[in-house]
């Protein structure tokens, strides 16, 4: 009660100062580089922009990028929930090691991940040769891209879910159980609504990461135009040919779609949070 009497003063000094620093740093590391991309004088005209935006090869690369990133983020959302659940709710020997393993994709250079995944999943690799017998080709197909992106994205989901799961008291479930709910009903009507907002956040983070991912994908995707060529590779390919304007155009479209998708998921998440409360 007493806390309410104290004027709203945070630990950090003055709102003006902190906001100033926030905006300054955000500008320095995010806004200025991105606006430099938007306004760079590489001779990007509307005509050039339209030409790039409607090029079938560019459109195909967006499809590949967004579909594989979306699929990988969906799988990660399900698997990540399971992983986070196990890590929070159960005790088992070596739990700390497993917990640290989750973060490893953050630290590993993505190119290393790409090379490693390719050698495992190529037709000559030990997973790939086994899957090839079942008629499933992984490396150099969209499936390979999805696997690389799952690897890159999984920590985002687990790390957003973990703290929320820790907060969730087991007694809510026990209460549901005493009121006669079965396991399935408890999960879907008691637990899932509370987990939905962080789940969407985790999904959005993994998705966004997947759209921009370059290093791990170029090795495993095979980079076939119109089939497994991702948008970031097309940007690199245009830069390699000194086509700065074309590269900028592809980047701007990528940025725009990503921003809209992320804005959408953010709104969805806020709406869910309000409805969950």
């Amino acid at each position: 009660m007493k806390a309410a009497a104290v004027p709203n003063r945070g630990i950090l000094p003055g709102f003006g100062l902190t906001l100033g620093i926030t905006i300054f740093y955000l500008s320095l590391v995010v806004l200025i580089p991105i606006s430099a991309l938007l306004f760079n004088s590489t001779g990007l005209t509307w005509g050039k922009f339209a030409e790039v935006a409607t090029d079938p090869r560019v459109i195909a690369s967006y499809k590949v990028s967004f579909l594989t990133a979306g699929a990988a983020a969906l799988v990660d959302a399900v698997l990540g929930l399971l992983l986070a659940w196990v890590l929070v709710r159960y005790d088992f020997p070596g739990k700390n090691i497993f917990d640290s393993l989750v973060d490893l994709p953050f630290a590993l250079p993505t190119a290393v991940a790409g090379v490693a995944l390719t050698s495992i999943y190529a037709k000559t690799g030990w997973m790939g040769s086994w899957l090839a017998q079942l008629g499933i080709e992984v490396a150099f197909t969209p499936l390979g891209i999805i696997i690389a992106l799952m690897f890159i994205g999984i920590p985002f989901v687990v790390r957003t879910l973990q703290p929320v799961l820790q907060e969730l008291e087991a007694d809510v479930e026990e209460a549901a159980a005493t009121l006669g709910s079965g396991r399935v009903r408890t999960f879907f009507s008691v637990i899932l609504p509370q987990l939905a907002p962080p789940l969407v956040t985790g999904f959005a983070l993994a998705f966004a990461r997947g759209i921009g991912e370059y290093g791990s994908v170029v090795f495993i995707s095979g980079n076939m135009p119109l089939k497994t060529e991702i948008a970031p590779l097309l940007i690199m390919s245009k830069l390699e040919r000194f086509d700065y304007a074309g590269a900028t155009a592809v980047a701007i479209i990528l940025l725009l779609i990503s921003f809209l998708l992320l804005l959408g998921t953010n709104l969805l998440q806020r709406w869910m949070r309000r409805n969950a409360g």
Partner: protein
Amino acid sequence: MKRNLKKAVIASVVLSLTVALTACGSNEDQASADSKKIELLNVSYDPTRELYESYNKAFAAYWKEKTGQEVTIKQSHGGSGKQSRSVIDGLNADVVTLALGYDIDAIQEAGLINEGWQSKYEHNSSPYTSTILLLVRKGNPKGIKDWDDLIKDGVEVITPNPQTSGGARWNYLAAWEYAMHHNNGDEEQTKEFMRKLFANVPVLDTGARGATTTFVERGIGDVLIAWENEAMLSMKELGQDKFDIVYPSESILAEPPVAVVDDNVDKRGTRDAAEAYLQYLYSEEGQTIAAENYYRPTLESVKEKYKDKFKDIKLYTIDEEFGGWAKAQKEHFSDGGIFDQIYTPGK
């Protein structure tokens, strides 16, 4: 807490000042050309790493004896286009030794290299040359002898993407030039040939080394289209018992050019050493090192000595077949160019 913070702030200020001061110091060192020590930066492309490691030692010894000046040469390697872009963006290269004239032209257009760089040294400023040939698995199970074997059904061809790799552009042009000669110069039939060839490519790596890895380490594909020096290096590194080199009936004369970055050497006062560095590549010693590293020498005496190593096949130059790099680049590899058309759906 507060005291710790103060300490941290002071420490970081002191640290950044020291860094700034030492940075200034080293700049001054580099600026004075008279000093006894000098540093050169050679910005090159991927497969020349081994070549310049040996050449730099030889040149340093030669320069020391000639002028008494100690020279250390730093190397930077990567995809040729990427390297060229770094130099344009301000990487302080004294000399560039890249895969294609086109990449040096781009630096010239940015104003860092004077016009006419390509006639400054002999042989179009290409001290050594190379060519494109085929590497197959031991015993050549698919019986590949020439370019037209690459478009047969069931043959998997490994080559990087010509839009991201300088080396792959040479591969592509070599195959194109062969198809032109065998279709009486008919462009439509040649395009069809290229379309079939690229339909046999299961993986388009972004660079030459990546393609070599796919073929050699992952065991994917029946034939690798490769630089002569990369093919010979793979043979040497991995043993003769795994691969065979196939010399096609004709190929392209790859001329990797060299140039002094005029703007940078004038600012840094390193012009004399930089020019000598490139000139010495044409000397007996420079040429021998190039030959030892699987590049074709241009000096007659050295050529003669290594004639068993480099098989004589008919080689065409890009100027006679394609009218120079700028034209080839625009026609084949720009957006909507012939390479794009090969992948256009419905065709």
